[in-house]
């Protein structure tokens, strides 16, 4: 899909009869500067209401661009502030927030970026934005206490019941399977690794999780991302280990489990005796 900068509406929104016309007029004119200023506005000195209405327009657009800047700081650094704000402005017109909870706003921004033709030369940008949205989601996710290492190892030693066990993952956990080095690019912008050492075209799988209070962005070994995804979807431990071993010849169950224990991604083992 190619996205151009023309107006989203085919024409002027049809006016409903009744008292809420001003809401219809405000909504279309606030998001789209090509729409006329709403009718029936006045000023004490007879000045043109357009300039006064522009205060609302600026409040809406600037505050939403600021919200996206807060959520996507690395995406912004990668394309520069001016470009980011211009891109965000188009996104806001196309996909304005649906909810007053702005921490949820922007979940469609990565897909918008993926289809936004002016950034086709930065193909990894959408995945970096996906990582940042997962980061925000993890930041606000429900709290849960990860399983401690002793309990985890105890559960793994229950050889008879282990294959049918289902694992409850931490509510903040997300896996990003990127065809680019989204995690390393993100880490380079945190100053934790040198950007010069990053090959953006090397595929990476990343776990984004907040086991306690800090959000962690953890690079995963081959197959580990799929392993976590299958467990999250409710597959049993045995089904998951088998499926991932077949799909990823390099998959190493022992080291993957050690990584998972260390990141706090598992909250509980559910051993269902009936299965």
């Amino acid at each position, binding site marked *: 899909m190619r996205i151009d900068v023309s107006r989203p509406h085919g024409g002027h929104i049809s006016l409903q009869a*009744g*008292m*809420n016309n*001003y*809401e*219809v007029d*405000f*909504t279309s004119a*606030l*998001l789209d500067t090509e729409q006329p200023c709403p009718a*029936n*506005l*006045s*000023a*004490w*000195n*007879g*000045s*043109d*209401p*357009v*300039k*006064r*209405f522009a*205060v*609302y327009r600026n*409040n*809406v657009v600037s*505050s*939403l661009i600021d*919200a996206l800047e807060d959520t996507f700081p690395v995406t912004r650094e990668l394309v520069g502030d001016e470009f980011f704000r211009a891109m965000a402005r188009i996104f806001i017109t196309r996909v*304005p*927030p*649906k*909810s*007053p*909870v*702005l*921490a949820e706003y922007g979940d469609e921004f990565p897909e918008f970026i993926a289809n936004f033709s002016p950034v086709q030369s930065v193909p990894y940008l959408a995945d970096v934005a996906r990582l940042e949205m997962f980061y925000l989601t993890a*930041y*606000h*996710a*429900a*709290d849960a206490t990860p399983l401690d290492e002793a309990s985890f190892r105890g559960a793994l030693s229950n050889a008879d019941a282990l294959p049918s066990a289902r694992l409850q993952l931490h*509510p*903040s956990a997300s896996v990003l399977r990127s065809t680019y080095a989204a995690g390393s690019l993100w880490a380079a912008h945190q100053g934790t690794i040198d950007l010069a050492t990053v090959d953006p075209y090397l595929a990476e799988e990343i776990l984004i999780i*907040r086991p306690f*209070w800090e959000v962690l962005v953890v690079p995963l070994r081959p197959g580990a991302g799929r392993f976590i995804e299958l467990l999250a979807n409710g597959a049993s431990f045995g089904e998951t280990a088998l499926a991932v071993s077949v799909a990823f010849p390099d998959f190493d169950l022992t080291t993957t489990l050690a990584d998972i224990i260390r990141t706090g991604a598992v909250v509980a083992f559910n051993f269902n005796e009936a299965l």
Partner: protein
Amino acid sequence: MPSPSHSEADLTGALPLSCRLPATAGVGLKPEHYTAVLSTYPKLGFFEIHAENYMGAGGLPHRYLSRIREDYPLSVHGVGLSIGSAKAIDEGHLDRLATLLNRYQPEVFSEHLAWSSHGGTYLNDLLPLPYTQETLTRVCSHIDRVQERLQRRMLLENPSTYVEFTQSTLSEPEFITDVLQRTGCGLLLDVNNVFVSCTNHHRDPLAYFDALPLSRVEEIHLAGFAEDRDDVGASLLIDAHGCAVASAVWNLYCQVLERTGPVATLIEWDNDIPTFERLVEEAEFADRCLATAWRTHKSSSRYE
């Protein structure tokens, strides 16, 4: 005039009165200041949060707020309920608010005389509405629903506006007065908004105050504004919350306190956020105004 859905006496009898905030100065709680608050425990009357910033399930915002709430009175201030909307109140958002209020049991909950959502789009600004009998009835029914669902009285805040509607038949203070009478809600008087709107619409702020039932003021807001001009060069003030409270607004605030007596007062500073120390200084200035109001009201018998 349409009859109210229930009398004020019925409502205040049926719903628990919100515990009042102490009549001292408080500040808006900003994530930038979480650690400063917990390391200094400043002498402040209360903290206020924007409800929508605490609607996530968990994480640091709730961890800090829970700790701060243990030691301070709390005001929850909604910015997204869209009480002025033509459509019914968003029940999903009311549910989120109910969850938040149950979790923190704040002394007060307040919202705005404005709308911010239309047709499933949230516009993230406090937008104006015409003041007519039709919008009055609608706003009252929305506030009735909010108070019923949340099982508490709310405070309604007067808006800052940049345009007026030709179809308005009521002045803003008349509209607000009728809402307070019909719904039993309290008034959150934003003195900066009064100054901004009265400047923008060439009205007298003192006449605005005197047209309101000031005995219903349960909280005051103070903030800084930005300055612009309309297209013929007249002053156009913007409620920007990005700087210190202006001296003209401090003066108005003292004049309001002469009329109301001491009232819980919030310093709002949401953009270009200063150091916590600087914010507390602003609150201390409000406390000095409140101390004067206490002295005046002790010497008069009106508020005993």
